[in-house]
C-alpha cells in the first residue's frame, strides 16, 4: 500500500470539488438487510449522491438520535457484522466514493487485539475512501490518523457548534476529506428547519479556504478542507439554505433512514423513493449555489 494522501488529493475531496455543492448521504448498512443496503446505495448513487456514508452498526450509538438508533438496532438484529459489511462494500460499484461511519470500539475490535490497523487495512482493500468516527475527538485520533494516512484513507472530523479557537485549529489540522459541520447541538435526526448554529459554525470556518486542491503537506499547515453540514437536514430547501450559507456540501441521514423504515425488507419501491429524495436534495443544493438546476427526470 502506498501513502497516496501525501502526494495526491483524496477521492473524497475530488468528489466534492467536482460536484460542488455536494450531496452526501448516510444510511445504516444492514437495515433491514445487507442485500437491501446494496440496492439502496445504488439508488442513492443514481439519484445524485456525490459521497455515500455507510453506517457500520455499534450497539451504543451515543451520537445518534432515535431514527438512526432504531436503524442500527434493526441492522444488528439482522445479524450485521463487520465481516458482512466489508463483503457488501467489496461488491458495490458506485460512482460516488464510499465512507464508513462507525464507533471507535468497532474499529478497535476488528483484529485479534484492540488495534485500529486491521480495520483500516480491510477498509482500504474493500475500496472505502474514508472513515468517520463520531466518538473519536482529535485528541484520541492519532493512531487512526496514522493508519488512514498509510492506506490513503480520509479521516473525517466533526466540528460542533461548541468547537472554537484552538480546538478548531487542531481539528482542521487533522481532518481530511471534508469537515463534518454539525448543524446543531445534540444527536442526529431529521428536523423541520435549519439551525442558526449552522450559520455561526460556517462563519467560524470561513478562514479555512478550500479553493485549492490539498495534500497532506498542506494539511499539516492547518489548511482547509471542504465543509459539509449535517444533523437535521431533511429537505431540498434546507440544502439550498445551507449551501447558500457557504457550505460545500450537505449531509443527509435520518431523512433517508425514515424512508427505509417506512418500507419492509426486500421492498423495491424503497429504492425508488430514496433515489427521488436524493434528486430533491441535490437540486436543493444546486439551487442554493445559484447554479443551474436540472429538471426532475421522469421515472
Amino acid at each position, binding site marked *: 500500500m502506498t501513502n497516496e494522501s501525501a502526494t495526491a488529493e483524496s477521492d473524497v475531496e475530488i468528489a466534492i470539488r467536482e460536484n460542488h455543492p455536494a450531496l452526501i448521504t448516510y444510511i445504516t448498512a444492514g437495515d433491514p438487510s445487507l442485500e437491501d443496503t446494496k440496492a439502496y446505495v445504488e439508488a442513492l448513487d443514481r439519484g445524485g449522491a456525490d459521497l455515500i456514508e455507510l453506517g457500520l452498526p*455499534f*450497539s*451504543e*450509538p*451515543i*451520537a445518534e*438520535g432515535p431514527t438512526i*438508533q432504531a436503524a442500527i*438496532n434493526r441492522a*444488528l438484529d439482522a445479524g450485521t*457484522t*463487520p465481516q458482512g459489511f466489508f463483503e457488501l462494500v467489496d461488491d458495490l460499484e458506485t460512482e460516488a466514493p464510499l465512507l464508513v461511519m462507525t*464507533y*471507535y*470500539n*468497532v*474499529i*478497535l*475490535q*476488528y483484529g485479534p487485539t*484492540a488495534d485500529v490497523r486491521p480495520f483500516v487495512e480491510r477498509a482500504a482493500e474493500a475500496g472505502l475512501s474514508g472513515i468517520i468516527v*463520531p*466518538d*473519536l*475527538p*482529535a*485528541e*484520541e485520533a492519532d493512531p487512526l490518523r496514522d493508519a488512514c494516512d498509510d492506506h490513503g484513507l480520509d479521516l473525517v*472530523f*466533526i*466540528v*460542533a*457548534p*461548541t*468547537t*472554537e479557537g484552538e*480546538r478548531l485549529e487542531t*481539528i482542521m489540522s487533522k481532518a481530511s476529506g471534508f469537515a463534518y459541520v*454539525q448543524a446543531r*447541538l*445534540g*444527536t442526529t435526526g431529521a428536523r423541520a428547519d435549519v439551525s442558526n448554529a449552522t450559520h455561526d459554525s460556517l462563519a467560524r470556518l470561513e478562514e479555512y479556504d478550500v479553493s485549492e486542491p490539498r495534500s497532506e503537506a498542506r494539511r499539516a499547515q492547518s489548511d482547509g478542507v471542504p465543509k459539509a453540514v449535517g444533523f437535521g437536514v431533511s429537505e431540498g430547501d434546507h440544502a439550498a439554505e445551507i449551501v447558500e450559507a457557504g457550505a460545500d456540501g450537505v449531509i443527509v441521514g435520518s431523512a433517508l433512514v425514515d424512508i427505509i423504515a417506512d418500507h419492509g425488507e426486500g421492498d423495491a419501491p424503497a429504492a425508488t423513493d430514496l433515489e427521488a429524495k436524493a434528486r430533491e436534495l441535490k437540486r436543493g443544493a444546486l439551487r442554493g449555489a445559484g447554479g443551474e438546476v436540472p429538471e426532475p427526470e421522469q421515472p
Partner: protein
Amino acid sequence: MSKSERNRERDSDPTFGDYGGQYVPEALMPALQELEDAYERYVLENEDGFVDEFRERMRDFGGRPTPLQRADRLSERYDREIYLKREDLVHGGAHKLNNALGQVLLAKYMGKERVIAETGAGQHGTATAMAAAHLDVPCEIYMGRTDVNRQRPNVYRMRMNGAEVNPVDAGSATLKEAINETMRDWATTVERTHYVIGSIVGPHPFPKLVRDFQAVIGREAREQIREQAGRLPDSVVACAGGGSNTMGAFHEFVSDDDVDLVAVEAGGSSLEIDEEEGLAPNSATLSTGTDGVLHGAMTKLLQSGDGQIMESHSVSAGLDYAGVGPELSHLVDTGRVTPVSVDDEDALNGFHRLSRLEGIIPALESSHALGYLERAAGPAAENASSPERSSADSRAGNPRDNGDEPRAESYEDLGDLVVVNVSGRGDKDLETVLEETEKRDLEAAPEVEVFDRD
C-alpha cells in the same frame, strides 16, 4: 515542585496506563476541558474554599464521618477481625452522596444551571436529587425501565426531592442504556448542563474527579482502623460495579503494599457468555472483560468479538453494567487489585447473613462483598465450590449443595484483619430480595412465608 503542582501534573493525565481517555462526540470536548479546569482549580487547589464547603456540607447534610464498626458475630463466624465501613449510614443510604454532593456543588461553582444524571440502582439518582434539592439546582434523572421497576422506592424518593425521572426503554433498559440517554441529553444541552456521572467511569476527568470525592471512605477507614485495631488491615474488600465505592475504599491504601485490595464483582447466574444472544449473565467485567471503548473511556468491557457491548446481568441493579472504571482496569492489570466474583445466590446469602447476624440490612450491591467473605473465609471455605460452578444450578433455581465438591479455585487469603465496605443499605432492595429468595432455597435466609402478603 509544590504539592499542588505535583497534583496538577499527575491529575491532568487523562489515562491510567492503557486505560481512560476521552472518547466522546466533539460537541462535549469543550465541556470536558471546562470540567478539567474546574477540577484542578476547585477540587485540587481549593479555590474559593470549595473543598472546605464540600467537607462542611458532607458533615452537616451528609452525616460524615461514617463509623468503622467491628462486626462481632461476623468476626466470630470467620475467626478473624471483620470491620464494616458503614457507608450505608451516609444520608440517602449509600456512598453515592459523597460524589453527587461534590459534583452538584462543583456544577454550582462552574455556573451550570442544571444537572442531569443516570442511575442504575437509583442510589446515585437519589443522591443527586437530594444534593440538587439541597443546593437548589434543577435536576433530571435517566433510569432504565427495568431498574425503574425493580427499584421503585428510589424512584419515589427522587420525585419527592423534585427531580424529574425519565425511564429509558432501549436494550435491556438498565444502567448502560441510561448512560447512553444521559450522554445524548448532555450533547444537546452541554452549555448550561453538568452531567453528574455516578461512578468512576466515563471520559477524563470524571474517573479522577469521582474517585477523589469518594476517597473519603478509605481516608476515614485508614485512620479509624489504626485507632481501633492499632494497625492497617490485611485486606480491604468492596463490591465493584462501575467501581466508585471500590476505588473510594481502596485509594488511600494503594501505596500500602501489605494491604490486599479485593474487588468483588457480580457473577450473576454464570460467568459464561452467550455470544449468539449478545448476553453476559453476569457483570464481572474485571474478571472476564476485554479491552475496548465504552462511554468515553478505554477500559475492560463485556463485549462480543465484533465489539458489540453485551447485555449484562446482576440481581443487584447497581452492579449491572458491562463496563468498569479505567483506573480499576489498570490496577487489576498491574496486580494491585484482585478481582473476584460471587454469584446472585452468594450475594443473597450475604444479604440475609448480615441482616440476621449484625442487624444491618445491606444493599444487594454491598451484599456481594459480604457474600465473598463467606466464600473466602466461611465455615465451608475449606471445601467450598468455585463461584463459577454454581451457574447452571442457580439458573435452574436449584439449591446449592454446599461442600460436596472440591474447591476449584483458591480464594484470596483475606488475613486476620479485614475491612469490608458496606456501600449502602438495602431498604431499596427488599422486594427484589423477597422475590429472589422465594425462588431459591437459601441457606442464610429466614422463612419467607412470614412475609406473605395475605
